């Protein structure tokens, strides 16, 4: 019976979430940048899951003026919204030493600026409704600033902090705000990368996210062991982290 809006679900975890909700016969509106990809995904899902009600809304997360209208359009398409998930995210590869300003700015735009706006808009909606689930897919990368990709880490740290503030703000209104820090998930974001471990499939990640959100959990990693690792990471002293911290 759930009516879900997924921001950024044409790939990876978002796509797996779309599939999971469609398989249950729910209402799913997907915000995505590429109309062709959106059509292909919705066409495939509709034929596999005829009980579901699936709609696509074209939205480029780099265009701030499009975010509000896209959310409204998505709500109209599925009647109302019970759960909003911001799952769009990009990570540009780096050489480990050189900052590329355009890449860094784009990561902030998609991972933080658009996320904050859409989650804020959805938060206003849920506050008036007096119920709702607001989910942001952040990252364990946001737990510490790391040398390989400082901008990515910072963009996710921004999102994590924003979600915490929003949770505290919306708690009195019956709105659940969830921060997910997945850990490694086998999507195109980490394709071809070395040093990947404890990796979950997107389907596994989606199933865990859905289950734990419904259980009322507020901050979690896909595997609990990532949570332990995150706890350790957050407590390594700065002078140690600077010299021998992970990339």
């Amino acid at each position, binding site marked *: *019976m759930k009516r879900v809006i997924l921001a950024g679900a044409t790939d990876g975890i978002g796509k797996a979430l779309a599939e999971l909700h469609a398989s*249950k*016969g*729910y209402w799913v509106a997907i915000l995505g940048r590429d109309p062709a990809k959106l059509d292909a995904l919705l066409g495939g899902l509709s034929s596999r899951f005829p009980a579901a*009600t699936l709609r696509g809304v074209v939205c480029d997360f780099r265009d701030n003026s499009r975010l509000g209208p896209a959310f409204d359009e998505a709500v109209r398409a599925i*009647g*109302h919204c019970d759960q909003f998930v911001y799952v769009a995210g990009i990570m540009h590869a780096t050489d480990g030493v050189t900052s590329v300003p355009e890449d860094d700015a784009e990561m902030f735009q998609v991972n933080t600026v658009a996320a904050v706006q859409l989650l804020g808009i959805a938060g206003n909606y849920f506050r008036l*409704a007096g119920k709702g689930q607001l989910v942001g897919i952040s990252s364990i990368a946001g737990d510490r600033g790391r040398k390989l990709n400082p901008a990515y880490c910072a963009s996710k740290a921004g999102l994590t902090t924003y979600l915490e503030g929003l949770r505290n703000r919306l708690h009195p209104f019956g709105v659940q705000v969830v921060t997910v820090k997945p850990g490694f998930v086998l999507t195109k974001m980490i394709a071809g990368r070395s040093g990947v471990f404890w990796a979950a499939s997107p389907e596994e990640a989606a199933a865990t996210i859905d289950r734990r959100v419904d259980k009322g959990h507020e901050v979690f990693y896909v595997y609990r062991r990532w949570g332990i690792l995150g706890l350790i990471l957050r407590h390594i002293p700065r002078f140690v982290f600077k010299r021998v911290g992970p990339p």
Partner: protein
Amino acid sequence: MTALELVQGFGLYNFSLSDVHRPRTVEEVQALVARFKSEGRPYVCRGAGRSYGPVATHPGGAVIDFSLLNNAVSLDAESGVMKLQAGATIGDLWRYAVPRGFWPPVVPGTMFVTMGGAVSANIHGKNHYKRGSFCEHLEAITAAGPGGELIRIPKDDPRLEEFVAAYGARGPIVEIELGMKRIETGYFDVEGFTLPSLSETLAAFESGKETWEYQVAWIDCYPSGADLGRSAVHVANHTPAGEIPAGKGFDLADQEVPGTIAGIVPKGLLAQVLALFTFDLGMHAVNTGKFWAGKLLGHTRYRQPLVHFNFLLDSIPDWRRAYRPLGFIQYQIFVPKERGLDVLTEAIKLQHRLGVVSYLGVLKRHRADRFRNAYTPEGYSLALDFPVTRSNSAALIQLCRTYDRLVAEAGGKVYRAKDCVGSFERSQEFLALRT
């Protein structure tokens, strides 16, 4: 930017944030309609918001709420025609009409629906098989045309069709003229009894069709096997003068539902008490208890004020609070008479198979409706209430989609006013595919 406010379907599951306008006069309605037309803005008309689903909601859009346009304008004692504004409720209506010796020919299970809503959804009651739907008793309606101009449409005008069960799509209704029923007393002679199965309940409806003006059965959806569809039936006729003095019960004090239960428990607390039972085991117990209480009482005969009999659920103020926060839905299955037993049996079995059993099932007898937007075949309807919870969500939508197919396959109908899950749109697509 206009401030949006929360607008809910009666079941609380469907809702929208909308820009709500509350006109107080017919002129204000006309001005709004003209303005929306010139701005090219679509709008939705809303009465008391008693439809279970989303028909009176409008995501991000404009809503005209008629609840302040609620005058009972007049009642002609000669012709029995009553004029009411669109936002007047059945409650406003009977409080005006009963002291004057009239009762509406068709009432729903709640007195809180408005006249505009009653026409726009073409509501029905427990006497549908005898008196048809609400709109069959209209003498005329007055609507605001596309430019805001008022048009009076009498009952033989084919344009009336465009407003019946049209959910405001043709523009707002501002006033109705309703042919009322003359009554001799303010009471019903009621009989109550239990029946052990669905087939016997349907048979009782058939044999009672000529004798009784009103028939309704509450169905316990929990038992399976031989007890499947066991019921508590209530049937009623107007008490004629002679049995009791003419005009007895016309005093409003005789009709008003008391504010306390058994003179002690304030009814405001009832929703909270109900909330203690709104989980599967609790409602199983309530349904079982209700059936056995009825069975132990046996075949009862009693006299009841019109209002008490018709608006049973209204005696628990805002009972839907018990279903917060996710709300509840209703699925009303309309099925032709000859398929009644097998389709409704299957409908209850499906609940057991999928593990979502209705907390409240209400069976009624219907006749075919003459209007284009008719939703009642000659046959039966079973209205089923289900809570929406995090854990039943997936099974519940699966049940609804299975019902969609079951109803379509049996040649049944979907009633838009009760539809919370998009079954109506699906049924339209299904029909389009067939033709």
